[in-house]
């Protein structure tokens, strides 16, 4: 269907409301959006190709830098995927510690999104308050691992260091604080009139659209479908400290707000439970330099949804192939569907309702319309194609 390009408003790639560049072509009639065409690939860095030249341990540092917000989950999926290729078990304490830091990261990611939603809706006060509380979580993460964002906490065989002494009490105190604040924010986002009119009824999706377009994470759970990988396919220590899967069935941005706040409260509960149940023992085992040959696919519930890694080893010290499929890639079509029929003023709020992380998202997919074929190219093939193309020109 052809849409008039005169009414095309480019949203991005550089825009104050997007943290990372992506290009959305919004076809407008007046202020109403009739069609959205996303164009991705602006943050493509060739990480999958670069992974093939680095050893297994070096890759941990690279994969955690795919995204700054869910960085621990990237390194977690990768290490657990590689450990699935090896024939021995990771110590229990390491799994509990991984769950602890994973849930802390979920809290910080949801708080980040909530604050940013306030900012996109023009409510800078909410943004500042929430990020002020988020600092408590970041300070905890820094105390555990040494860095606030790219924590480099997991390693092949376990975690790099144990919890510092005396931190357990501080963690419990901070969790109590965060729970109290989350309660306050829940009442605020439901009662503040100017925020409610911006989010209630906006970005409506229902189960039918969800089944057709396959979103993941909170975007899926807000339609009422209760899918959570931590509950269905437990990894780390989630079989012993399971989550309470939160759903909502309203399907709009306001319900996403309360859903993520509920997830924060649940994560606080899980952190406290992990601290109580944590077994003693080693937190790390030695892992061989060359990983045995095989293929493993692994998925976790990152704060944004399902994060999927496919790891293939040929028995050497470098991986043969690592494939990453992040949650934002799965959510982007749903987000563009959510936008139809809304006005331009809703775009920041609705588009970012899916909690986009375009840094995670970009993998190139090539569609050859003439031959009606669609495939994903690896970096080497793309590079050769580019050289050939320009040589022929």
């Amino acid at each position, binding site marked *: 269907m052809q849409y008039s390009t005169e009414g095309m408003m480019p949203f991005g790639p550089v825009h104050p409301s997007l943290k990372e560049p992506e290009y959305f072509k919004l076809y407008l009639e007046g202020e109403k959006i009739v069609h959205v065409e996303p164009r991705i690939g602006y943050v493509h860095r060739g990480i999958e190709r670069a992974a093939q030249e*680095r*050893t297994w*341990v*070096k890759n*941990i*540092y*690279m994969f955690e830098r795919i995204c700054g917000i869910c960085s621990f989950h990237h390194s977690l999926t990768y290490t657990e995927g590689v450990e699935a290729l090896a024939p021995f078990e990771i110590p229990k304490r390491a799994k509990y510690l991984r769950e602890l830091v994973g849930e802390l990261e979920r809290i910080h990611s949801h708080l980040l999104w909530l604050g940013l939603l306030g900012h996109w809706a023009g409510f800078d*006060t*909410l943004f500042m*308050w929430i990020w*002020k509380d988020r*600092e408590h979580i970041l*300070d905890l993460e*820094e*105390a*555990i*691992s*040494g*860095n606030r964002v*790219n924590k*480099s906490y997991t*390693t092949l065989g376990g975690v*790099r*260091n144990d919890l*510092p002494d005396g931190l357990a009490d501080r963690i419990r105190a901070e969790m109590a604080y965060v729970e109290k604040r989350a309660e*306050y924010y829940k*009442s*605020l986002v*439901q*009662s*503040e*009139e*100017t925020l*409610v009119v911006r989010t209630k009824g906006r970005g409506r999706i229902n189960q039918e659209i969800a089944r057709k377009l396959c979103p993941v994470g909170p975007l899926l759970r807000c339609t009422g479908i209760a899918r959570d990988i931590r509950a269905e396919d437990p990894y780390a220590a989630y079989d012993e400290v399971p989550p309470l899967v939160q759903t909502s069935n309203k399907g709009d941005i306001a319900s996403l707000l309360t859903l993520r706040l509920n997830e924060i409260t649940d994560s606080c509960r899980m952190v406290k439970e992990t601290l109580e149940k944590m077994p003693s023992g080693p937190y790390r085992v030695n892992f061989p330099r060359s990983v045995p040959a095989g293929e493993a696919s692994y998925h976790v519930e990152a704060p944004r949804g399902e994060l999927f890694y496919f790891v293939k080893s040929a028995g050497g010290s470098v991986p043969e192939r690592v494939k990453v499929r992040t949650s934002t890639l799965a959510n982007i079509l749903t987000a563009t569907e959510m936008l139809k029929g809304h006005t331009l003023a809703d775009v920041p709020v609705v588009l970012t309702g899916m909690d986009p992380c375009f840094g995670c998202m970009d993998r190139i997919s090539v569609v050859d319309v003439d031959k009606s074929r669609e495939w994903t190219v690896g970096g080497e093939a793309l590079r050769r194609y580019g050289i050939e193309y320009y040589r022929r020109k």
Partner: protein
Amino acid sequence: MTKEPRRKVASAMGEMFRTIVEHPVTAQYPFGKSVLPPRFRGKLDVDPVKCTGCSVCEIVCPAGVITMVPVGKKTIGSRQVDIKRPLFDLYTCISCGQCVDDCKFGALTITHDFELAVFKKKSLVMEKALKLGQ
């Protein structure tokens, strides 16, 4: 099912006036000292005495910071081999600490120094390990 709170305008006012009398949270760096946790990962440091030139740090560094440089020769059996010592290009260092973890001799440490802005890249090249330790 909890009851939804009543919608009202400017419901943030109470919290706002409470916050206005609290101490602000902004840290006044550089006019005030920031408190760093003990595990904070800043600049890398090397102890030249403990370094034996085993090259493990060069192999494991993800960022390619370390280059082993020949600084002398020694005889092992009937062969002459290079004695190598590490040269650190700290402007590439990501402070991940992998070299610290893998150094069996404890020659590497991560310090709390984070004020690493310099005018010349060369200032961040650490050569102190190139002198042969005793």
